C-alpha cells in the first residue's frame, strides 16, 4: 500500500437544524468557505472537490457541489459520491484514495443536506426506502425504523439487552450535545422520558430516532509533502485509517440481526491500515441513528465484548472521559442527522477534540479517534481513524 501520509488541515461546519431561510447551496458554500479559511491556504491550491449528499437531487439540484463552488469562486473538478446516508464518509474515503494514489495533493470534501424542505414526512420515508431493499423490504411495507426495531429485538433476545440499556444511549448523547454549539438539540432528555414515550415501532419509541435536519460540513485534506511545503498551515491531524465494506442490503438475507457484519469487516481493515487495535481508540463517533445502532457499533468495532454494549452504556463506560468516550458531539441523536453531512461532521468532532477545541466536551489524553458511518441498516459501512500521536505531528 502507498506510504503517502494524509492530513486534515482545515474544517468548516454549519449549525445543524432547520434552516428554512437558507438555500441548499448557501448552506454548502458556508461550510466549504469556513474550511478553506480554517486551513489558512489560498483557495487556488485546492485541486478537487468530492461531495456527498443523498437527497440533493430531490431538491431539483443534484449538483449542489457545483453551486457551492461557484459561490466560493472555484473552478475545480467536482465529483458527487453516493453511499446513501453515509455519503459524507464515502466522499472522504474517495478523496483519501485520491491523495494516497499520488495524483492529487490537496482536496476539499463536502457533505451537505437540506432536509427541512421535505415538509411531508412520507417523502423522506420514501427516499430512505432507497437505503434498504426498496423492492423487497420497502415496497412490502418495511421502513428503516421498523427494520431497526427488528435489530433491537434480536439483540434483546440474544443478549438480554434491556429497554433501559437501549434508552441510556440517547440519554448520554443528549447530555454530550448540550456542550456542542452546532448540535440541533442542546438539551438533556431524562431516561424516564425516553422509556415512557409512545412506541412507534416496538421496541423503538417516539424519541429514539435521530432527527433528519439541514446541515453542511467540509474538510480540506492534503498530502504530507503539501503540508511541508506550505508553512501557512498551522494545524494538522493525521488520517491513519480509511476503509469501507458492505453487507447484504436486506435483513432477510443476513445470517444474524444482532451484529453488523460490515462494521466488523470495515473496522478490521481500518485497524490493519492504522496498525493499531480497538484498545488504542480513546474516542469514537458512531452511527446512533437509533439506540441499537450505537450498541451494535461499540461491540462490532471491538470496544466491548459482543452482547456487553448495553450493560457498558448503562454503567457509564462510554461517557465523556470514561473508558472510551463515545459520541462526545451528541451523536446523530443530539447533533441531528443531515445524511450526507453526518459522516464529515463525525470526522470534524474528532479533529476538534485532537486540536483541543472541544471546550466543555473535551476529552483528555486522546491517542486515536475513530468514526463509523452506516448506510441504511448496514449495507455499507465506513470507518476512519485519526491519530493524535506525538511522533505524527
Amino acid at each position, binding site marked *: 500500500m502507498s506510504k503517502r501520509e494524509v492530513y486534515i488541515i482545515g474544517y468548516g461546519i454549519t449549525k445543524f437544524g432547520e434552516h428554512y431561510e437558507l438555500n441548499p447551496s448557501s448552506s454548502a458554500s458556508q461550510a466549504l468557505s469556513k474550511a478553506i479559511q480554517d486551513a489558512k491556504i489560498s483557495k487556488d491550491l485546492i485541486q478537487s472537490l468530492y461531495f456527498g449528499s443523498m437527497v440533493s437531487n430531490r431538491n431539483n439540484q443534484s449538483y449542489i457541489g457545483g453551486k457551492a463552488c461557484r459561490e466560493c469562486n472555484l473552478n475545480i473538478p467536482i465529483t458527487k459520491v453516493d453511499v446513501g446516508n453515509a455519503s459524507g464518509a464515502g466522499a472522504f474515503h474517495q478523496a483519501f484514495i485520491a491523495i494516497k494514489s499520488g495524483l492529487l495533493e490537496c482536496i476539499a470534501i463536502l457533505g451537505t443536506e437540506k432536509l427541512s424542505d421535505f415538509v411531508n414526512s412520507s417523502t423522506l420515508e420514501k427516499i430512505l426506502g432507497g437505503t434498504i431493499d426498496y423492492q423487497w423490504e420497502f415496497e412490502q411495507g418495511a421502513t428503516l425504523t421498523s427494520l431497526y426495531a427488528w435489530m433491537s429485538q434480536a439483540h434483546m433476545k440474544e443478549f438480554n439487552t434491556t429497554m433501559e440499556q437501549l434508552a441510556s444511549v440517547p440519554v448520554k448523547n443528549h447530555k454530550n450535545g448540550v456542550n456542542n454549539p452546532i448540535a440541533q438539540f442542546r438539551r438533556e432528555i431524562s431516561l424516564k422520558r425516553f422509556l415512557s414515550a409512545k412506541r412507534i*415501532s416496538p421496541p423503538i419509541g417516539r424519541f429514539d430516532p435521530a432527527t433528519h435536519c439541514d446541515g453542511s460540513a467540509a474538510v480540506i485534506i492534503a498530502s504530507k509533502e503539501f503540508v511541508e511545503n506550505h508553512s501557512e498551515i498551522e494545524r494538522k491531524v493525521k488520517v491513519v485509517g480509511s476503509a469501507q465494506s458492505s453487507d447484504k442490503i436486506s435483513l432477510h438475507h443476513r445470517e444474524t440481526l444482532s451484529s453488523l457484519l460490515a462494521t466488523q469487516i470495515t473496522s478490521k481493515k481500518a485497524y490493519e491500515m492504522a496498525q493499531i487495535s480497538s484498545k488504542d481508540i480513546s474516542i469514537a463517533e458512531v452511527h446512533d441513528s437509533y439506540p441499537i445502532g450505537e450498541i451494535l457499533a461499540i461491540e462490532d468495532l471491538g470496544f466491548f465484548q459482543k452482547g456487553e454494549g448495553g450493560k457498558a452504556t448503562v454503567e457509564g463506560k462510554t461517557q465523556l472521559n470514561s473508558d472510551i468516550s463515545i459520541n462526545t458531539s451528541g451523536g446523530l441523536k443530539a447533533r441531528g442527522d443531515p445524511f450526507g453531512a453526518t459522516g464529515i461532521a463525525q470526522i470534524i468532532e474528532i479533529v476538534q477534540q485532537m486540536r483541543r477545541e472541544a471546550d466543555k466536551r473535551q476529552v483528555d489524553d486522546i491517542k486515536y479517534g475513530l468514526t463509523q458511518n452506516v448506510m441504511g441498516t448496514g449495507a455499507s459501512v465506513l470507518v476512519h481513524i485519526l491519530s493524535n500521536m506525538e511522533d505524527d505531528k
Partner: protein
Amino acid sequence: MEPPKIWRERREKYLALGILCQECKRKSFPITLYCPHCSSENISELKLAQTGKILHFTRVTQTAEELMLYAPYIIGLVELDDGIKVTGQITDTKLEDLTEGMKVRMVFRILSKNGEEGLIGYGFKFVLI
C-alpha cells in the same frame, strides 16, 4: 409504481416465485439471473413454501404515501417452511395478539395504491393459521 416495473415483477410478486440452483441445489428469493450462492446460470423457478413462522414483527405508522393505505400495519420477518426468509405484512390481526414463532400462511393482497386513479400494487402478505 410504473407499469413496466409491475409487469416485470409479476411472477415474483403475484406467484411468489424464487429460484432453485441446479448446480448447488440451494434455493433463493427473489428471482435473479445467477445463483447468489455459487453464481451458476443453471437455475430454475421455484414456488415458495406457502406457510412459515414469524421471526420478528413490529408496527409501521409512517411510510410513503402510496403505502399508507392500511397504516398503521404490522411488518414481519417470516421464515418459510422451505427455509427462505421474506419480509411481509402480517394482516387481519392485532399487534398485541402476535408472538414470535407463530405460524402464518401466505395470502394475495393489495400492497399499494397511487391515489384514487393510480395503479394498484398487489403482492403477498401473511395471515395467522
